[in-house]
């Protein structure tokens, strides 16, 4: 009888140890699964970020083309239909960028300069203007989603 009891106690002990071991392994396995799922999520995020980087990178190059078309437009004295056609190309580019979520930054002449979205490239003393007021937009700025691809370049009053 006593022997049986002892055996039972030992068996219970073993069972308990095995259960503990099982729980430990289960927890380890679950953590491993979770780690993997988290890793997959992080990787997906990283991939998205990478795609965004890529978009911003080539947008940068494309924006230079748009700048130059913009400059050309300002120089146009008389709009022949050929020139009209060329300027429409700019429209095409801008729409294309919009489709990729790249939009022009709204900068207004007369408002105060804000380095969050604008970059000062020239200053000028001007009577009647407030210090730090935007006098002119030198080059349009763009953002992709909420990130500044390129700040608006502006001329700022310095009095």
């Amino acid at each position, binding site marked *: 009888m006593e022997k049986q009891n002892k055996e039972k106690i030992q068996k219970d002990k073993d069972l308990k140890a095995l259960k503990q071991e099982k729980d430990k392994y289960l927890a380890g396995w679950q953590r491993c699964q979770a780690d993997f799922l988290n890793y997959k999520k992080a990787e997906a995020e990283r991939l998205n970020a990478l795609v965004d980087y890529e978009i911003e990178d080539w947008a940068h190059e494309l924006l230079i083309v748009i700048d130059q078309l913009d*400059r050309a437009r300002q120089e146009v004295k008389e709009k022949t239909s050929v020139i009209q056609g060329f300027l429409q190309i700019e429209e095409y580019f801008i729409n294309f960028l919009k489709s990729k979520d790249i939009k022009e930054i709204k900068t207004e002449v007369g408002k105060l300069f804000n380095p969050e979205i604008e970059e000062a490239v020239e200053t000028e003393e001007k009577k009647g203007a407030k210090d730090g007021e935007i006098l002119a937009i*030198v080059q349009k700025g763009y953002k992709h989603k909420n990130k*500044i691809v390129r700040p608006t370049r502006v001329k700022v009053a310095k009095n």
Partner: protein
Amino acid sequence: MSKILGIDLGTTNSVMAGIIDGEPQIIDNKEGARITPSIVAMNRNNERFVGVLAKRQQITNPENTIFSVKRLIGRKFSDKEVQKDLKLLPYEIRESKDGGVDVKMGDKWYRPFEISAMILQKFKNDAEDRLGEKINEVIITCPAYFDDSQRKATKVAGEIAGFKVRRVINEPTAAALAYGLSKKVDQQIVVYDFGGGTFDISILDVSEDTVEVKATNGHTHLGGDDFDQKIIDWLVAQFKKDQGVDLSKDKLALQRLKEGAEKAKIELSTAIESDINLPFVTSDSSGPKHLTYKLTRAQLEDMVKEYIDKSIDLVKKTLKDAKFKTSDIDEILLVGGQTRMPKIQEELKNLLGREPRKDINPDEVVAIGAAIQAGVLQGDMKEILLLDVAPLSLGIETLGGVNTTLINKNTTVPYSKKQVFSTAGDNQTSVQIKVLQGERAMAIDNKPLGTFILDGIPPAPRGLPQIEVDFELDANGILQVSATDKGTNKKQSIRIEGTCGVSDEEVERMKKEAELHAEEDKKKKEIIEAKNQAEALVFSTQRTLIDAKDKISEDTKKEIEQKIEELNKIKESDNIEEIKSKTQELMQSAQKAGQEIYQKAQAEQKTEQEKEAGAEDNKEEKAEDKKEQDSEEGEAREEDK
């Protein structure tokens, strides 16, 4: 334990990195950029800007925009360098009470380390935002030539920013850490650091437990920006000559020239020629003017020769200071964006007789090194669960003595892989599975780990039985290989222990050998493949001859038999060209036979069609079946024996 940040606090730009998921990674700042300008500014409303925002407002507020403060940190006002910089920096600088330096920003005077602290604080906040956890500790890098007081000031900057500064480490040492060179004892390393505004050269000596800076030199006002300026000057001169307009007076034009020059410089690191194309760059009474010039790599190299020569002279001087010969140098590490210029790499190679290391982004290598040091301190680099990798590829021997790899080297274990194979001969009732370890293409050149036989496969034409080979490599490196005949579910397996236990030397030797023999192996493999293809073709054509003997003309049959004989003869040799051409010839003859078979079948169909409409489908199907079966056999990759 919280993360430790690694920060490369540079003169012009700074970069931060940390250990993320066990790997050192650059951490983006709030604006989403990997690099942050080392600039701090205060506007009239006492708003403080750090980084790119400070840079954007710089020209509206030059007297309150502090840049290059690293040139002043921890220095005495009377230092020669400070006196020199005094004339170059647009903000106010005065002697502090203790003989140090004060700079003025807004209405207040600050010590340079307070300015650096503002940059470090931005990094702390941005990193906490990005990683979603508090970061209290940091490792900051500084130039090797920094003295005690400059190092102390750097440390204080970190403390003011709210960090516990675990270490201030040398920039060249960080670069060596990034390249994992701190573990290799008895190495002499040249670190060539050509940044935006400064040039540093250091020679490191790595011993058992220290990385010692043997000698260091540099130029505090020589950097990539000087290269840009050379291009700008050239463009201005050219334009003046061609168009008569001086662009250097036009601020906006100059801005565009600067961008164009930098772009051209970057392009010329990979291209031989670059177009600088700036339409509407300016205008005069005659209308708009456009700038377009070609700049070649050779031209650029000529323009900046003096700078490169100066840097190379400094390398020589540093070698002399360290009492090293050029032949003593084991590694050259490149730091700073300007080192991407091929001419610089070439000059270094010419001087030191070895290829400089450039696999890590030279703009980020110092921050990466700081993060690695951080990882060592916080235990990340060791703590991560030690998952082993298979040091060498594992595979089996297939027809013709080819090593077919199932598990590639460097695969993280545990891992398993299944692949289905078939028999090489008709009525083959057993296959031998020979397990191999190594990178070589031919089975004989790899290490055999074990062999077993799966028998009891029911007799069938070659290529028909499906034998699934399953490789299971567990976390302890124990490999279990089993083969199952999917037709009968008969299974045999073998357990191989200690596959990861190959000594490191052995692994290295085998890898080296594999590299050495890669070309030779490729040829051998090609020959075997050509032979296998030839054999398969002979086999299938022979079978066609038997199966369709009454549908093929005598002439064609003779031709094919002759070609088979020719191919059989040549396929025992190693003449791959000959085997291929004979295989091609046989294929053409076999196609002829195929045509005849189909023509005959069609003719038969026609006559039968007239007799009986239903019989037609049957025949066609049969012909299709045959064709499919033949092509399958041609491709099958079979288990030998």
